[in-house]
């Protein structure tokens, strides 16, 4: 029973994957195959991460100012 389910599942997976690859629509496949996509992801990811960390630092700075104002009252 288990084997049959496995066979069936792999068959479905095969159908699905062949369906998605049978199309002739041009995509950046070579770019991905070369692995260059990871370079782009690394650059954009680091930029976003850097900006978000900067936002956290800004957030902390504002918290400090809030507290100094509240303690001066």
């Amino acid at each position, binding site marked *: 029973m288990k084997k049959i389910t496995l066979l069936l599942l792999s068959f479905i997976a095969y159908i699905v994957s062949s369906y*998605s690859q049978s199309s002739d*629509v041009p995509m950046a496949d070579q770019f991905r195959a070369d692995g260059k996509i990871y370079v782009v992801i690394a650059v*954009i990811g680091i930029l976003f*991460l850097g900006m*978000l960390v900067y936002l*956290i630092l800004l*957030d902390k700075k504002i*918290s400090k100012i809030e507290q100094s*104002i509240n303690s001066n009252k």
Partner: protein
Amino acid sequence: MLNTKINWWKYLTIALVIYTVVAGLLTEVPRLPILNETIRNLYFHVPMWFCMTVLLLISVIYSILYLVKPEIKNDFYAVETANTGIFFGILGLITGSIWAKYTWGTFWTSDPKLNAAAIGELIYIAYIILRGSFQDEQQRARIGAVYNLFAFPIFISIIYIIPRLTDSLHPGNGGNPAFSQYDLDSRMRLVFYPAVAGFILLGVWFTSLRVRLRMIEYQIEQ
């Protein structure tokens, strides 16, 4: 004792936005003619509008709260959510325009969805200008809140309802199926929904910082 703890949801925001960037570029997408790889813009362009709409909804809720209970903080929330909403809307307009250039062949067409988005933007810019034109703090907050109360339903109807009643190039309008057709593909949903959540949270974060700065300014003036 300084307490500069960062709320957990801010880390969630970072995680979601970074996930969007990585998964948005890396995961499989449907192969569609004309769109090709630009279908990935769905993960970045569309969340801008979701974020704007949610922020404007929060804005109108704070305006109602202000009218019920005139506290200055409610007014600050109303105006700053509108400000951040306008910011995300402008990003949405620019990114949509670039996307249109490479799929429809032009930066701008007089499509109902596009024009409505531009008008919606202007409605809210008018709100900010209207607010700025009053010297008296309470008068400014009150009139701004009433304006906002009218602006939000108009914004929703011109941007989400009217384009659906007419013909439009933009997906999701005038018998033009939205991305639901492509995103039958559950793979795209796995990135799209976290992207929407991430950018909405990012908008809330921007807003909260600006509200806090306004409160500091207000306390110093007092």
